[in-house]
């Protein structure tokens, strides 16, 4: 071995180990959890999205392309979905109710679709009117292009800002070198639309030539968690990093979140993606997970059902199979705790209209966390 090889070896070993260093605070597991859970509905393999009409009447998406309406524990398949393109991590994704659902029965879904007739697919956003267990007036509001047969990174969550807009995300679609940093391309973006699907006049890139006008922020890898902070109204997001480098971000208009120019993660093979974890003009995550927990859905909890958890952030972990309780202090993560340790791959978590936490677990269905009295 000559000295050059030797030093590059030393360098890469140091570099890789520094990248792979576990981030603090360490996850803890409570010895005597003071809660249990009930299964609200079972027999759903990948419960991706969840939307509550009332506490006993809600919608669940099954990634393989089924939408269920669950009323008092009985699930009915909803008909009238658009054609869903199921491939890799794509399929039927999120479902969300229009802020005025009680009067207009309108909902939104995101899904992998192919409407162009070529090969492959990409993420689309639809609105539809729910009539019992039937979708009517299905309307395509946005379709990311181009279609690709890649299996990765479709996003997606749908979130409303309470000011007449909705947000949804699309992952980089397995093309990190072209998509996330290019405003003229879809993928690796958070989008903002008016509720009718039109583009808000004050979107950050409406005047930028060649840019997709629906883009709100960019430089994302795969946003699968998104929620509005109930107190500040800020848009919070989690995204999957590669090996290490999963992130929590607060999304601001027009900002670049850096993927793949900066990341705290490395390739699955162990090789580096970039030397940089920070660059000018690119946002730092509020928190990053090393090792990766594979964050899915997320929600803040502000109900009074679990007094000790009030104000905490909850994030599903697919890879470590638990729900993570994240305690924040001045937007810094100060504590991380396992809830429902080893429960299975946690796909989603929402707070129901009754203030309870509802958790979507792969192969199990929807679980409701119940405090022990």
């Amino acid at each position, binding site marked *: 071995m000559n000295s050059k090889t030797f030093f590059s070896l030393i360098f890469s070993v140091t570099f890789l180990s520094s990248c792979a260093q576990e981030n603090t605070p360490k996850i803890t597991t409570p010895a005597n959890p003071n809660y249990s859970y009930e299964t609200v509905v079972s027999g759903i*393999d*990948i419960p991706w999205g969840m939307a509550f009409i009332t506490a006993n009447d809600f919608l669940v998406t099954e*990634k*393989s392309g089924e939408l269920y309406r669950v009323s008092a524990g009985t699930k009915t398949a909803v008909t009238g979905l658009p054609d869903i*393109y*199921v*491939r*890799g991590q*794509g*399929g039927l994704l999120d479902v969300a109710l229009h802020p005025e659902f009680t009067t207009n029965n309108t909902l939104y879904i995101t899904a992998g679709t192919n409407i162009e007739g070529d090969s492959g697919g990409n993420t689309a956003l639809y609105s539809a009117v729910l009539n019992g267990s039937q979708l009517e007036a299905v309307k395509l509001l946005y379709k990311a292009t181009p279609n690709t047969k*890649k*299996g*990765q990174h479709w996003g997606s969550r749908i979130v409303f800002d309470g000011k007449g807009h909705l947000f949804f995300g699309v992952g980089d679609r*397995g093309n990190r070198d072209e998509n996330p940093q290019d405003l003229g391309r879809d993928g690796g973006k958070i989008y903002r639309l008016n509720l009718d699907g039109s583009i808000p006049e004050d979107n950050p890139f409406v005047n930028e030539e060649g840019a997709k006008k629906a883009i709100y922020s960019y430089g994302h890898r795969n946003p699968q968690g998104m929620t509005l902070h109930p107190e500040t109204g800020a848009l919070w997001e989690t995204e999957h990093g590669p090996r290490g480098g999963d992130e929590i971000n607060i999304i601001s208009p027009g900002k670049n979140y850096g993927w793949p120019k900066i990341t705290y993660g490395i390739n*699955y*093979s162990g090789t580096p993606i970039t030397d940089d974890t920070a660059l000018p003009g690119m946002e730092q995550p509020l928190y990053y997970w090393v090792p990766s927990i594979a964050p899915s859905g997320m929600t803040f909890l502000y109900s009074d059902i679990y007094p000790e958890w009030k104000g905490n952030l909850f994030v599903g972990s697919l*890879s470590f*199979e638990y729900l993570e309780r994240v305690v924040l202090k001045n937007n810094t993560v100060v504590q991380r705790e396992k809830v429902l340790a080893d429960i*299975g*791959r946690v796909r989603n978590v929402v707070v129901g209209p009754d203030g309870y936490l509802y958790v979507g677990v*792969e*192969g199990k269905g929807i679980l409701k966390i119940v405090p022990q009295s």
Partner: protein
Amino acid sequence: MKWIISTLLLGIHALGVYLYQEKPLEQSIADGAEIYQDFCLQCHGSKGEGVAGAFPPLAQSDYLKNELEASIRGIKYGMKGPIKVNGVKYDGVMANQGLEAEEIADVMNYVLNNWGNKSSKQITPQEVVAIKKTK
């Protein structure tokens, strides 16, 4: 006359088999490697090692060897419920990845010829097509 027809039919059959086997094993394995990177690696690992307790290994897996048809069926339609791999019980969900028959054949050939696995028999797309959802 009869033997002419027979010879002709045999010839057509041979041609069919020839065209069928058009993709050499090496090419199928190479194509399968790409599919593996895209659709399988995240759970089953870059060396087919799996994740203890969660995702079964593919490297030197007895299940893969003994339950070839069930393995292909699993990729094609998805699978769930308890299985035993190398003496360890797994009870998870593998989602249908939406792969085409040729892609499933390719990824099977890749997996069956890597990480200490060795298979003399090439999986063909036709074989994959023939496998139905339930036995």
